[in-house]
């Protein structure tokens, strides 16, 4: 009897209907929502600083409300990193939603990934300086944790496990380790489970999403693309598929694109619990929208964990304006030259100007990285001022001023952190 694990989200903004479909018709043991990109957690940390009860995925409530009734009915557990910068608050909110829906499900929070209090001495790859040099510009520092605390939460009976930063494949590997009882030094199986997680973690990117190239790589019914699931055996080999009646396709071609997505050396995919080796992976079409995956192996992990450090790095000031019809390109180029002359503030550190055009419209985009907010606002303002003080017939100005949150990375010893799982006492809905 294979273990069925599906992916209900591959990024924070992912579609919800296909996840609900998987929850309802997938006969899943586990549904994983992966919603935390490199920078998402820094934005969440800023939200938490503004409101101690915030800092988790803003779509968590919608996702849970869409999927929880079916998950409860079908005995499907949920593992997710939607806790972002505040897994505890997310778990409390999830517990309240469970109660409101009249369900009986146990929620766990996994914490310990936040290392902002112990990253100071570690040198950042990108800057060559210790993190402490960032001073008050440091926003967050989170280690990519492994399966340990997630497995513990499942073993203690959690139905919904909410983490912050964990390695993406670990969200999928953990339920496999728990279900099959794989040993943490069984690196072959951990490597195979990591492959399953890696192929699933971007949702539709393995079922025909991010794949279509009309006339060359056509994808049937992409509008209703289904999300993937894997049928996993005790040895860690698996078949990747999607639900009947959904759009998209699962073929060795879709799987190969996803296999290499965000992979550097295929023989050394560094994970907290294993160095997975994908160099010998095989993919075989065994039926319509069914691909057998095999050949992954693994070896002992490095003993260090990757840490993503987020820091404030100035401001983005940007504006766009369009010119159309006769002589449009010349007017767009003139607008650009005028901005080059007007925008000389020393706070502008970098700039990129380009004209995006077609036969009828030319749109100038002028983007800058500035030391401070006021300078970035002045850039946006100068683009808007082209209306009256620029070339003829400019229109459709848009402006954007945003703080830049940069990401750097470093390594810390795995022994420096102690992830933990806390199960929340259920709330009982009172009439």
């Amino acid at each position, binding site marked *: 009897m294979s273990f069925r694990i599906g992916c209900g989200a591959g990024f924070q903004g992912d579609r919800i209907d296909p996840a609900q479909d998987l929850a309802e018709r997938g006969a899943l043991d586990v549904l994983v929502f992966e919603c935390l990109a*490199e*920078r998402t957690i820094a934005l969440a940390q800023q939200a938490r600083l503004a409101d101690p009860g915030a800092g988790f995925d803003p779509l968590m409530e919608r996702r849970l409300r869409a999927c929880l009734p079916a998950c409860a009915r079908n005995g499907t557990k949920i593992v997710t990193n939607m806790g972002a910068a505040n897994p505890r608050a997310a778990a409390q909110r999830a517990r309240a939603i469970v109660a409101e829906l009249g369900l009986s499900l146990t929620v766990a929070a996994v914490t310990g990934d936040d290392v902002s209090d112990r990253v100071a001495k570690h040198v950042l*790859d*990108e800057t060559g300086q210790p993190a402490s040099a960032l001073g008050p510009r440091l926003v967050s520092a989170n280690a990519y944790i492994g399966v340990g605390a997630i497995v513990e939460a499942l073993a203690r009976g959690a139905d919904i496990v909410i983490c912050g930063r964990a390695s993406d494949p670990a969200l999928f590997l953990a339920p496999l380790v728990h279900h099959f009882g794989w040993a943490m030094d069984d690196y072959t199986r951990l490597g195979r489970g990591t492959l399953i997680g890696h192929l699933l973690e971007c949702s539709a990117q393995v079922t025909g999403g*991010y794949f279509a*190239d009309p006339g*060359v*790589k056509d994808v049937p019914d992409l509008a209703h693309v289904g999300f993937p699931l894997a049928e996993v055996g005790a040895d860690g080999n698996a078949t990747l598929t999607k639900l009947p009646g959904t759009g998209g396709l699962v073929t*060795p*071609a879709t799987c*190969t*694109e*996803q*296999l*290499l*997505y*965000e*992979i*550097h*050396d*295929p*023989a050394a995919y560094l994970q907290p619990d294993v160095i997975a080796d994908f*160099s*010998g*992976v*095989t*993919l075989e079409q065994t039926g319509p929208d069914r691909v057998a995956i095999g*050949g992954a192996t693994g070896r002992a992990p490095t003993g260090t964990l990757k840490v993503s450090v987020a820091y404030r*790095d100035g401001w*983005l000031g940007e504006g766009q304006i369009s010119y159309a019809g006769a002589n449009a390109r010349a007017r767009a180029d003139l607008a650009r030259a005028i901005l080059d002359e007007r925008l000389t503030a020393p706070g502008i550190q*970098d*700039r*990129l100007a380009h004209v*995006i055009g077609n036969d009828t419209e030319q749109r100038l*985009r002028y*983007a*800058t*990285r500035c030391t401070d907010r006021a300078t970035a606002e002045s850039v946006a303002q100068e683009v808007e001022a082209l209306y009256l003080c620029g070339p003829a017939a400019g229109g459709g100005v848009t402006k954007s001023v945003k703080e*830049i*949150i*940069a*990401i*750097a*990375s470093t390594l810390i010893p795995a022994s420096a952190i102690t992830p933990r799982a806390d199960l929340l006492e259920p709330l009982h809905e009172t009439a």
Partner: protein
Amino acid sequence: MRLHDLAHGRTGDKGDVSNISVIAYRRADFGLLRDRLTVARVAARLGHPPEAVTRYDLPQLGALNFVLRGALKGGVTRSLALDAHGKCLSSVLLDMPLDP
């Protein structure tokens, strides 16, 4: 003949590192891709220094994986480009002529 006639691919990004897969539609074409898609030619096509490009071969999948270090002008979080992730890079590479 363009690369797009024989292969498909996808770009991924981690920090300031971009990786581009190139996958042969037909396994029979893999040898040709391996011969023609040298690091030097791919680097030139993408305007990247060749010493910052590494190629990994996966013959059993008919695939090559190009890793470009320092490709994203400081990474998605600092780049001023509209496509800050560099997600278009695979399509740009697929437009490359495949002359000997």
